[in-house]
Structures are given as C-alpha cells and as structure tokens.
C-alpha cells in the first residue's frame, strides 16, 4: 500500500446532470495530513463521499489499498473513517457509548473487543466521561469530538473530516485541534478554516469547479493571496502565516498501515 488515496481522472455527475467532479487526479501518501479547501459547491463533500464508496463516479479510485467498487465497500468502510459536518447526522444512537460501538459491532468484533475500542476511542478524544450520556445533552464541541471517536473506534487507516471546526467557539475549536493533532492517522480535512489548515496540515489542495486547481505545501498555497482570492478564499485579516506553529505529530511509533 503505497498510497492512502490514489485517484485517476475521477469524474462524477449528479443524477440531475450537474457535473460535480471533472477529472480529479490526486495522490495522498500514508501519514500525510492534507487540507482540502475550496468555495461552497466546489465538490469537496462529493469527493469525500467517494472515499467511502457512498457514491461512485467514473475513473479510477484506490483508497487505503482497495480499488473502490461494489465488492470492496464493506472492507473500505472499515479502513476509511468519515466524519460528517453535522454531528447530529453522525450520532444517531440513544447513548454515546452505543454510538461509538456501532462501527466496531458492524465489523463483527466480540463484546469485550468492542468495549475496549469504545473506551480507547473516547479516551483519544477526551470524552470518556460522557459515555452514558445522550448525544443531545452534549455541546457542539463535545458532539464533534464524539463523532470523531465513532470512526476512530473502527481503527481506520485514513480519517476524512468534513468542516471539523464549523460552528465551534474558540475554546472548543482549540480543544478539537489538540485532539486532531494527537491522532496518528493519514488525514484529509475539508475546511474553510484556513488557520486550522495551517496549523494541522503540511499539504493543501484547492478544489474549485470540480477540479484540483492547486496542490502544494500549505505554507506556499496559503501565502499566495491571488490564488486564494481567485477561489473565494482568504486568511483572516491580520493573520500572520509566518508565526503559525505547525502541530507536531504524536510521539511514538510511526504510522503503520493496517
């Protein structure tokens, strides 16, 4: 498995005929943290749904060592953790613990292994104390972190997050960043939060009109004001890219593919 994501000429047309992806070529290596930027309607979410086989377009797509197709979807969904933008969509079980257990149980693990994974995943997002609460009793920031735990419990090789910092207050956003920085996985993060991309990801892509229009080191892409402006993106006023400290990866073993 050399690549976490390997897309060749990926195109997708919605049933209504609108073209959402127009030939995506992308290679993301193991252990990379990649930010996916782009204006609304650029095709970011459509691309994310492809990574889990939830929709399938034309062209080649290999994710986490599997060619995406009808036969591989179940194995694929175990390897790719998709965190949706609205945690209320992601957390559908009556209690947090049951929700985190949903994925591992679908992997046919036995009860003890599932309980272990639930504790481990909730620990990774520092949410072990809410295991028996109902999702509606949690704050937005807490729900976001629990939503991340629900996919971490499946031990995915690749973590895909859709707008993880949307609707969070500064403190919840900081806590989320701390949690994400501590996760040792290949990561693809779609976001409008450019400072988050700068702090978390070493590589940045810009998707616009269904095509990848920029792909490079985050520092270079975000420093290119004209490029950002051309795609309706901008850094917050007064933001100094030079002073951003990229988060260190968690210490310990290097990332091991499954």
């Amino acid at each position: 498995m050399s690549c976490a994501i390997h897309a060749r000429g990926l195109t997708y047309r919605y049933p209504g005929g609108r073209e959402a992806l127009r030939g995506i070529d992308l290679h993301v290596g193991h252990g990379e943290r990649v930010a996916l930027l782009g204006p609304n309607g650029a095709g970011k979410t459509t691309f994310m749904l492809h990574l889990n086989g939830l929709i399938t377009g034309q062209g080649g797509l290999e994710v986490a060592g599997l060619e995406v197709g009808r036969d591989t979807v179940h194995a694929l969904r175990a390897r790719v953790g998709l965190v949706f933008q609205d945690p209320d969509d992601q957390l559908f079980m009556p209690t947090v613990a049951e929700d985190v257990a949903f994925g591992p149980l679908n992997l046919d693990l036995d009860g003890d292994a599932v309980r272990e994974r639930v504790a481990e995943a909730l620990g990774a997002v520092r949410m072990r104390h809410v295991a028996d609460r109902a999702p509606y009793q949690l704050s937005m920031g807490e729900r976001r972190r629990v939503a991340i735990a629900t996919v971490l419990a499946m031990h995915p090789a690749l973590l895909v997050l859709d707008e993880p910092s949307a609707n969070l207050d500064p403190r919840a956003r900081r806590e989320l960043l701390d949690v994400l920085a501590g996760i040792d996985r290949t990561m693809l993060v779609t976001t409008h939060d450019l400072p988050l991309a700068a702090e978390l990801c070493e590589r940045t892509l810009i998707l616009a009109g269904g095509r990848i229009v920029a792909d490079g080191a985050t520092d270079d892409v975000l420093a290119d004001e004209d490029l950002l402006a051309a795609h309706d993106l901008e850094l917050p006023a007064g933001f100094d890219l030079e002073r951003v400290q990229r988060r260190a990866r968690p210490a310990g073993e290097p990332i091991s593919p499954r």
Partner: protein
Amino acid sequence: MGGLCNHSLALTGIAGDPGSRVHRLDPRAKLVGLLGLTVVAVSTPLALWPVFVACAAVLAAYAAVARVRPGDLWRRVRVVLPLVLLVGLFVPFVRSGGRAYDLGPLTVHATGLGIFAAVAAKAALGTSSAALLAATTSFPDVLRGLEALRVPRLLVLIAAFMYRYLFVIVGEAGRMRWALLSRGYHPRHALHARPMGRVATAMFLRTYSRGERVYLAMLARGYRGAMPQLVPLSLARADVAFVAAVLLALVPLRVLGAAA
C-alpha cells in the same frame, strides 16, 4: 410550540432514586410486569372494581420502592390523561340505560356513567403504568427490552430514531418559530396560520434530508441492515420475582372475580 415541547420533554427521563431496586430491574421484567398490569386493568369490567384497587395498590407500591414522588408522577400523567379521558367524556350523554338524570338540556344515564367510570379507571391505570415505566427505565433500556422481547426490529428502530431526533426537530421548530416572531408574525385569525404551514413544509423537507444524511453516516460505518447490540440483557432472580409478584397479585383476583 417550542416552549410547550421543551416543557413536555423535561418530563421524560428517570425520576425517583436511580439506584432503587425497581430502577435496577431488567427492562424486560418491568415491561412484562407493567404490561401485564395494564392488560388486567383494561380487561376488567366495572363490576369487578376491586381489581382496579389492586392494580392501583401495586402501582403505588412500585412508585414507593422506586421513590417516585406522587407530584412527579402526576405531572407526567397529566400530559396524556386528559386526551384519553376526552374520548370517554361523551359516553354518559349518548349511552342510554338505567336511571336517567336531567342536567338542563342534557340527560345522563347510569349505564353511560358506569362505562365512563370504567374507562377513566383503565385510562388512569394505563397511563400511570407507562409513566412509571418511563420514570424508572431509561429510554435506551426500554428499547433494548423491547428488542429482547422480540418486538419487530423495524418498530424498535423507528422508536429509537424518533427518540434520538425528537430533540433535534423540536430545537429546529423552536428556532423557526423565533424567526417568524422576530419578523413581526402575530397570528390573529385562522388565515394567518399560513406561515405555520410553510414552517411545517420546511420541517418536513429538512427532516427528510436529515434522514438521508443519517443513512449515509450509518453506511459509512459499515451498516448492513441490522442494528448491532453491545450490552446483552440478563435476567436475575429479582426480575423473575418481580414479574411473578405482579401477576400473582392481580391475575387470580381477576380470574376468580370473573368466575364468581
């Protein structure tokens, strides 16, 4: 709308002492016991009124052990009971037979009054059973119990999603209501209800698209059509004893009464 719903939602969930022996019973035992009590009550004619008293005594003992205060129980029962009683309220006026009492333009018959009294007793016992079940068993546990009792999975699943998303939908409805009010919406007669219809449409569409997104999120985590279970339920001696005690207290009384 929002205020009322939030008020009603505050009346759900556990009441009393969460560590009580009743709270700790297996949800299946509580479901079977209280359902049994309700069936006995509903099947009892007015002539066997001591059975109603026995049912009420069992419920009172249940509430006492669970330390559910009468006030808490009343606040919960009050939400449902008037609606149930409304159905029976007309019976004394339309059902003839027995002695007649004149109430101005209306006439009430003794047979009708008897039927109303029986309906009221059954309704009060049934709603109290349900309210006590809800006060002593968390909703997820009720669902687990229902599933273990072989209630069709689809129904349990629908109930689970309703419980999960009720709060989300109530929140959305409340925000839309504020949005209407903050732009000067003051309905004064029936024609002014039109914007509420639009709100209902918007709610339906939002709920529909949320359903689709939730389904995608389920598929993304390997859903294949069956809801997996983490905590297997296990029946203890206390659970069997509880069901046996409830049924032994009521069923013989009911059956012997009918025979006599």
